[in-house]
């Protein structure tokens, strides 16, 4: 060590006595070497301090920059609003999971048997504490709600930290890479994804207490199909056989009722087109609730009374209205009227000329199916927090309510409101009965919709336990975060003139589709930033899975592999023929199975090769067994197949495809692909994402303050226009004698 450093340090830090100090200073003056060293040291220290200051400045600058962005675009509200949410969400311990696929010697059954899938898929590890309820969301969006004290070992209850290991194969690429197959005792299945779950403490396998169970919600990739949960059993050839199917619980997930949309279809859009700020719920509520249903006997469609004048001043009924009348569609009549109003033509309300039309609708008498429509005051009653945790406070009910509006039948609404203690599917079935035998188009469509709802077999709201409450909070929180991030993104983009023009063109359609906006790259990047920041403020890991409408839920009481499947058909692959009765025609047929033999070029050079048969349009993955040097499987005559081969050599992945497989012999060569290319495979029936933008008003950002105030000033005059939209069966207040001229 340099001889001067220590004393210089002591001098600088004031550790020298008075005499020592004086001595040192004398030396400084006389000894040039010391002086140089002293100045060097000072300068060095300043440099170190500067480095420290610089780092702090950079950090502060960055924080200030993010905060200013947020303040500017109004999402600072996120911090305050969500401060009350305390949902314990366990984080994935290894966010860039480079963890080994097999981490223990024994599997969850305490044997040494591991399948190809176990060896291929890297785990996600979560640590939870048994003293609290925890919610976990996996990478692919499976949500586990784990109650406190849910685990036990040989000796009894388990306390403290528990390690949860999860593996997922929720996409075709992942399924095939893992060598997984969708077969159950020789029967073919269609899958919505597979996953593995196990709990350990200090490496020891735990079991799940049967009275507790882990409530599992899986994104439904095959909505409309009846899926079941299968258990996986490892076989000797490295595969997994799926067995013991159990139906899903179809419990409804309760949400905050105020977060749902109970307005009639097109209500918000119409308000928007008139210049209102539809994100202001107080405003939209007050407008909606101010419109009440009139219990008149007459119910001629008001459109009969809306006629315009042609160039000669002769009354003419708009063709759009005529057309809509013919279709008897209340909605389109209302829309047609609004359009005519917008066109600026001269409108008068004139006395209905009963002699002119021999339309049975216009007999001025009772129209018993439509005596009164859905009264806003009724909606006002149910759209209240006191109905939280009932079937009304669910996305499922929101969906059904939209259909109920189109039927104009208040009895349908009553059905659900009065059936709070029943299961949803019971009411769906009664709704179908109520709607049968009615003639109009709207009713017909509604009837179909309720049939589909019934097929979902949705149940009730599960028991109000604390961990279900946590789950509910989790979904609500996610919904809010996504909504806030979307709002912030739109605001930011519309603030930029150029982007606004482009996005405005996309969003100008009556019912702006978030799908089209989401594909815009600028939107995606900005949204990603806003979403991450929203989560960061909560101190949580961002969830990249958008809030979905459809989940399949069940309670899991055993660890291991699980699979979400539906049976494809009653068949066994091992047969050579099958007696088959066509469901539609009742005709019988004998289906032949013919062998397909596949040779893979240079098969020996790969470490692992999986060959698959993929029946057309199904989410089925039939792994072909090796017969000597080739892959061999029987093809069902009724299916069209393609074949995919995936192979591995070291870290590299190879793939080959045959798009149309024919019985007999075939061969394929493989080429190297990247993981990203493999991820391009998607399930056929992937559910459509939530349309968030149609809930938000793009015009919010185009509006200038004066338009808004002007609109509010004209409110009364416009009220009448709105009545038409909300109540197509509505008759204006005035006596038929008076002529009423409408402001343009």
């Amino acid at each position, binding site marked *: *060590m*340099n001889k001067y*450093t*220590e004393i210089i*340090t002591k001098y600088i830090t004031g550790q020298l006595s008075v005499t020592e100090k004086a001595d040192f200073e004398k030396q400084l003056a006389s000894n040039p070497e010391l002086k140089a060293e002293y100045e*060097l*040291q000072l*300068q*060095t*220290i*300043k*440099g*170190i*301090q*500067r*480095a*420290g*200051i*610089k*780092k*702090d*400045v*950079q*950090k*502060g*600058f960055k*924080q*200030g*920059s993010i*905060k*200013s962005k947020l303040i500017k675009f109004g999402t600072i509200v996120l911090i305050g609003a969500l401060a009350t949410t305390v949902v314990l969400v366990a984080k994935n311990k290894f966010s860039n999971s480079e963890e080994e696929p097999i981490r223990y010697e024994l599997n969850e059954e305490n044997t040494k048997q591991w399948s190809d899938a176990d060896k291929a898929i890297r785990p996600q590890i979560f640590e939870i504490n048994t003293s609290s309820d925890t919610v976990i969301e996996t990478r692919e969006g499976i949500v586990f709600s784990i109650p406190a004290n849910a685990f036990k070992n040989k000796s009894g209850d388990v306390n403290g930290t528990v390690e949860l290991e999860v593996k997922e194969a929720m996409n075709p690429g992942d399924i095939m890479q893992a060598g997984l197959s969708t077969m159950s005792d020789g029967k073919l299945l269609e899958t919505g994804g597979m996953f593995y779950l196990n709990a350990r403490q200090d490496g020891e396998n735990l079991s799940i207490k049967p009275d507790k169970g882990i409530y599992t919600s899986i994104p439904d990739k095959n909505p409309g199909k009846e899926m079941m949960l299968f258990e996986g059993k490892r076989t000797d050839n490295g595969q997994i056989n799926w067995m013991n199917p159990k139906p899903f619980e179809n419990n409804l997930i309760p949400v905050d009722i105020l977060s749902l949309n109970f307005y009639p279809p097109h209500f918000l859009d119409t308000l928007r087109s008139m210049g209102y700020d539809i994100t202001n719920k107080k405003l939209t509520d007050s407008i909606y609730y101010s419109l009440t249903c009139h219990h008149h006997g007459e119910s001629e469609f008001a459109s009969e009374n809306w006629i315009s004048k042609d160039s000669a001043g002769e009354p003419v009924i708009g063709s759009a209205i005529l057309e809509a009348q013919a279709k008897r569609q209340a909605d389109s009549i209302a829309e047609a009227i609004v359009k005519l109003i917008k066109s600026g033509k001269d409108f008068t309300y004139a006395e209905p000329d009963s002699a002119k039309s021999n339309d049975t609708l216009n007999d001025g008498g009772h129209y018993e199916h439509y005596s009164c429509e859905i009264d806003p005051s009724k909606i006002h009653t149910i759209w209240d927090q006191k109905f939280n945790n009932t079937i009304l406070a669910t996305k499922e009910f929101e969906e059904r309510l939209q259909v109920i509006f189109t039927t104009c039948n208040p009895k349908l609404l009553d059905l659900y409101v009065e059936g709070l203690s029943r299961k949803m599917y019971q009411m769906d079935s009664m709704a179908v009965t109520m709607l049968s035998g009615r003639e109009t188009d709207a009713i017909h469509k509604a009837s179909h919709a309720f049939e589909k709802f019934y097929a979902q077999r949705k149940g009730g709201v599960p028991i109000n336990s604390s961990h279900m409450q946590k789950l509910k909070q989790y979904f609500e929180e996610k919904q809010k975060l996504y909504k806030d991030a979307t709002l912030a993104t739109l605001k930011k983009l519309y603030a930029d003139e150029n982007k606004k023009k482009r996005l405005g063109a996309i969003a100008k359609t009556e019912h702006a589709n978030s799908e089209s906006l989401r594909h815009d790259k600028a939107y995606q990047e900005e949204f990603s930033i806003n979403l991450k920041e929203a989560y960061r403020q909560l101190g949580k890991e961002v969830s990249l899975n958008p809030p979905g409408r459809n989940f399949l839920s069940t309670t899991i009481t055993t660890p291991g592999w699980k699979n979400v499947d539906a049976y494809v058909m009653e068949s066994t692959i091992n047969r050579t023929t099958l007696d088959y009765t066509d469901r539609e025609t009742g005709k019988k047929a004998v289906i032949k199975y013919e062998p397909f033999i596949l040779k893979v070029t240079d098969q020996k050079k790969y470490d692992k090769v999986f060959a698959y048969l993929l029946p057309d349009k199904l989410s089925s993955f039939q792994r072909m067994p090796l017969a000597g040097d080739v892959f061999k499987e029987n093809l069902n005559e009724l299916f069209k197949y393609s074949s995919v081969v995936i192979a591995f050599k070291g870290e590299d992945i190879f793939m080959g495809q045959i798009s149309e497989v024919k019985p007999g012999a075939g061969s394929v060569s493989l080429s190297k692909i990247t993981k990203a290319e493999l991820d391009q495979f998607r399930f056929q029936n992937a559910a459509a994402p939530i349309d968030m933008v149609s809930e938000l008003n793009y015009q919010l950002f185009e509006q200038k303050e004066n338009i808004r105030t002007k609109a509010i000033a004209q409110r009364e005059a416009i009220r009448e226009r709105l009545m038409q939209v909300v109540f197509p069966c509505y008759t204006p207040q005035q006596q038929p004698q008076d002529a009423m001229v409408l402001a343009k």
Partner: protein
Amino acid sequence: MKDAQILELLKSGSFTKAGGKLYAYFPVVKKMVLKNNGSKQDAEDIYQEALIILFRKVQEGNFVLSSSLNTYLYSVCRYLWSDTLKKQNKKIEFEKVESFIPDEEIEKDNHKESQYRIAEKAFQSVGEKCKELLVLFYHKNQGFKQIAKDLGFASENVAKNQKYRCLEKAKDNLKKLKTHLK
């Protein structure tokens, strides 16, 4: 946040927090730089440099607020940017305002800082652990006990010795760099 409060933050060593608050004065500087042939990155660099100068002066106890922090920072940034442009043989154009800090004063501070910039550069080439240690000691003013805990040294003394060694290394680097620059 008032200027006085920000200065208090700085005196108590909350540089990051103060930096965040002071972001508010950045947009004006950004505008000035962009108007005069600069990029957004240039503006950021200039502004952060001005903050460093300000923070150091407060740390050394020789900062006196004569006008407002806004004016001070703007003046420093204007000086720094015009200095940069001079080197590129370009001129700077903007309005001269009375309340600005005189250039000579800023020049003095900047000149001092340039010495420190060189020292910082030399410091950057010591090992990561040394860097951490030295910053904790000289910037965060942490005691050896805490440093030993944070960085995993066996004892206070080990931390002390290590600090000397790291300081030596930094001094050597600086010496070499200085002879190189001559």
